C-alpha cells in the first residue's frame, strides 16, 4: 500500500516529488520494511521450522500456541486462532509446513482486515482536519507525529503541530525539533499550561493560517490515571466544540513491545476519547506486536500505521497481509 492510498481527503493531483518518492520507496523501503519485519518474524519462523519438520504431531498445536503467545497475541486470541487453524487444516487436508503457515498467515490477515476498506484510511478531508494522538508514556507519540507530518507535507497538505504535552519536561522542545525538521508550524505554550487551552489556540491558529491538518500531541498517560484520562476527554471536547465532527482521527500509539496490557490500554483510551485507529511503533526491534491482533479482534479498532525505525521515512501504512505474511512466512510480500 502506498502512502497516498492511506489517506482520505488528499487532493487528486499528487505532487510530483511525492509520486517519485513513492516509486523509489516501493523499491527501497519495502525491502527495508521486510527486513525489519523479518527481524521480528525471524525467531518465530525459526520456531516453526523446527517444529513443523516433524509433520503434524500431538505436541504441534501446543507449540503453535506457544509461538503465538510469544508474539504477544495473548491467550484468548491464540486459542481462537489455533482452533480456526485446526478446522481449516483438517477441511483442506493440509499436511506440509508451508501450507500450514500460509493458512495461519491467512487467518491472522483476515482478523486484521477491516470490514470496510475505508476504515483503515486516515481521514484528512476536514478543513482543517484534526488528528489527536494519544497513548501511554514512552510509546512514541511525538516521533510518530513528526513522521506523519512529514508524509502529509509531502503529499501536499499543510500540517500544523499542537504541543499539548505540557507536562513532560522538554516535550514541547522535542516536538519543536520535529516541526523544524519537517518545516511545519507549531503552536506551543509555556510548560504546565492547560492542554485544552493550547489545543484551543492551535485550532484557531490553524484556521487563521489556513493549515490543512492539525496534529495534536498529548502527554503520555497511563490509562489508569483517571484525572489524566478526564483531561484528555476535555481536550477532545474542546476540539469538537471548535470544529463539529473533530477530531476526525484519534490515533492510539502502541509500542510493539507491549504485552497484554495493550488491550486494556486500547479499551480505556477508546472509552475516553473514541480511538479511530492504532499506530504500532517500534517494530524494528525483536518484538512482534501481536497484541494488535487482540485489539482488532476484541475491540474492532483498525490498525492504521506502523513505525519501523527512527528516520522520518520510517512510518508506513499498515497492511494486514504484509504484516501477517512477514510475521509467519519467508517469502516476499505480495505486490512489491
Amino acid at each position, binding site marked *: 500500500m502506498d502512502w497516498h492510498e492511506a489517506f482520505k481527503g488528499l487532493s487528486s493531483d499528487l505532487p510530483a516529488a511525492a509520486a517519485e518518492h513513492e516509486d523509489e520507496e516501493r523499491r527501497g523501503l519495502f525491502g527495508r520494511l521486510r527486513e525489519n519485519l523479518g*527481524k521480528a518474524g525471524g*525467531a518465530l519462523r525459526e520456531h516453526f521450522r523446527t517444529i513443523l519438520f516433524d509433520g503434524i504431531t500431538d505436541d504441534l498445536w501446543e507449540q503453535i500456541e*506457544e509461538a503465538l*503467545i*510469544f*508474539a*504477544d497475541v*495473548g*491467550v484468548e486470541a491464540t486459542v481462537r486462532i489455533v482452533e480456526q487453524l485446526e478446522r481449516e487444516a483438517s477441511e483442506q487436508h493440509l499436511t506440509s509446513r508451508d501450507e500450514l503457515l500460509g493458512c495461519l498467515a491467512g487467518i491472522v490477515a483476515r482478523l486484521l482486515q477491516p470490514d470496510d476498506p475505508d476504515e483503515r484510511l486516515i481521514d484528512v478531508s476536514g478543513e482543517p482536519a484534526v488528528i489527536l494522538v494519544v497513548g*501511554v*508514556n*514512552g*510509546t*512514541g507519540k511525538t516521533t510518530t507525529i513528526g513522521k506523519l507530518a512529514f508524509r502529509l507535507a509531502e503529499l501536499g497538505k499543510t500540517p500544523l503541530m499542537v504541543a499539548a504535552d505540557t*507536562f*513532560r*519536561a*522538554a*516535550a514541547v*522542545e*522535542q516536538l*519543536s*525539533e*520535529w516541526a523544524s525538521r519537517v518545516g511545519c508550524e507549531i503552536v506551543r505554550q509555556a*510548560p504546565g499550561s492547560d492542554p485544552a487551552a493550547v489545543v484551543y489556540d492551535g485550532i484557531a491558529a490553524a484556521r487563521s493560517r489556513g493549515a490543512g491538518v492539525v496534529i495534536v500531541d498529548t502527554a503520555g498517560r*497511563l*490509562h*489508569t*490515571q*483517571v*484525572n489524566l484520562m478526564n483531561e484528555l476527554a476535555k481536550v477532545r471536547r474542546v476540539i469538537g466544540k471548535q470544529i463539529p465532527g473533530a477530531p476526525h482521527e484519534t490515533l492510539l500509539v502502541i*509500542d*510493539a*513491545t*507491549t*504485552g*497484554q*496490557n*495493550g488491550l*486494556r*490500554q486500547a479499551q480505556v483510551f477508546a472509552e475516553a476519547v473514541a480511538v479511530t485507529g492504532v499506530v504500532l511503533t*517500534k517494530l*524494528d*526491534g*525483536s*518484538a*512482534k506486536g*501481536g*497484541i494488535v491482533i487482540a485489539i482488532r479482534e476484541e475491540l474492532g479498532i483498525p490498525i492504521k500505521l506502523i513505525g519501523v525505525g*527512527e528516520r522520518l521515512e520510517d512510518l508506513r501504512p499498515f497492511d494486514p497481509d504484509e504484516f501477517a505474511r512477514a510475521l509467519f512466512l519467508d517469502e516476499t510480500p505480495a505486490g512489491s
Partner: protein
Amino acid sequence: MFDSLSERLQGVFGELRGHGKLSEADVDKAMREIRLALLEADVNFKVVRQFVNHVKERALGAEVMESLTPAQQVVKIVNEELIALMGSGDSRLAFSGRPPTVILVAGLQGSGKTTTCAKLARFLQKDGKRPVLIAADVYRPAAIDQLVTLAERVGAPVYAPGAHVDPVDIATDGVAFAREKGDVAIIDTAGRLHVDDELMEELVRIRKAVKPHNILLVIDAMTGQDAVNAAEQFKQRVDIDGVVLTKLDGDARGGAALSVRAVTGKPIKFSSTGEKLDDFDAFHPDRMASRILGMGDVLTLIEKAQTDISDKEAARLEERLRRADFTFEDFLDQLKQVRKMGSLSSIVGLLPGVPGMKELKNAQIDERQMDRIEAIVFSMTPEERRHPDVIDGSRRQRIARGSGTQVADVNRLLKQFREMKKMLKQMAGPKGGLLGKLPGFGGP
C-alpha cells in the same frame, strides 16, 4: 499493580479452600489456572513452564497432602517460588569507596530512562548522597533539555555539554565533573534497540570508558514476551547489574519482572510507580511476591512513612489525633504529610488487601480534588480554620470565591470535616486517628 494476577490466584485458591484435601486433579486444575494467569500476565512462556513445574512438584509432595490447610500451603509454595524466581533479599546499589560511584542507565526507547535518572537522584539525595546527572542521550530530540529540567527540579548538578558531543566523551567528562560536584554520577543514555549493533557498541564503549559500578537496565512493566530478548541482549553486551521496573502505577500485571529476573539472573533493584519524582522505591522481591498474592505491601509503606515524615512530625500529628481536638489547620498539615509520601493512589496501592478489594480499587482518588480542598482551606482566615463554626453564608461565599470553587464545594468540605471530627471523637483513644490504620502513624 499485579491485581489481575492476584485476583486470578485468589480465585484458584478460593476454590482450593473449599476442599479438605488436595487430589492430583485439584493440583492440576490449580496449575492450569496459574499457568494461564502467568501467561496473561506476560510472563515469558518458558519461565511459566519452569515455574509451574516447580510449584506442581512441591504441591504434589507430602507436605501439601498432610497439611491441615492445603490451600494455605499452596499459597505458601507459590509465594516461595515467586520469591525464588525474582531473587531474594535486598538488591542494593554498589557504592565505590572512592567517589564518585558511577551508575549507567540504559534501556529501550520509551522505557523511562530519563525520568528514572531524576527519580534515582532524588532517591539517593534522601539517603544523604550528592548525585550528579549526566546527559549522554544525544539522539532523541530534546532529551538533554528534559534531563536538565528534571535536574533543576531535583536540585542536582547536571553535566550537559550538548547534542554535538560524542556520548563517550560526555560520560567520561561527566564523571570528572561529578567528582568535583558530588559523589554519585548518574549517566542517562539514549534509548536503543537491543538489535541495533551500532548503538549497543556505543554503550560498550561508554562502559569501557567510565567503568560504572552499576549498570541499570530500565524495563517498562507493560513489556510483553520480548522483555526476555531485550534483557538477555543487554546483559550479554554490557553486562547489566540490575533492573529498574517502571510504569508500575498502571494496571499491567508486570510479568516482565518475573521473566527478566529468571532469564538474566540479575536482580530488580528499583520500581518506579508514578508521575511524581518521589514515586520511586527499592524493589523487594519478597514484598512483590506478597503483593502478587494480594497480601499488600506494608513494609514499603512503612519505609515511605519513615523517610518522608520525621519522627517529630509524626509524634505531633499523633498527639493531635489523640486529642481529637482537630482543626482545619491540623487537617491541612495532615494533608501535606500524606501528600509528601507520594501520590495517594500509589499509597493506596501499597495497602494490604487493596488489590483484592473491588470497591476500593474502583474508588478513584482524585488528586485534583485534594488540590481543591487545599485551596478551600487556604482561603479561610486563621480564625475560621480554628473555629469552623463561625463560617456562615457570606463567609462561605467569600471562601468559594477565594478558592475558585463553588459554595457547594465549601459546604461539602465543612460537612465532611464535621463528620470526621465526630468520628475522631468517637475513636479518641490510643488507637484513634485518621491515619491510625496506616503503619508508622501509631496504629496497632
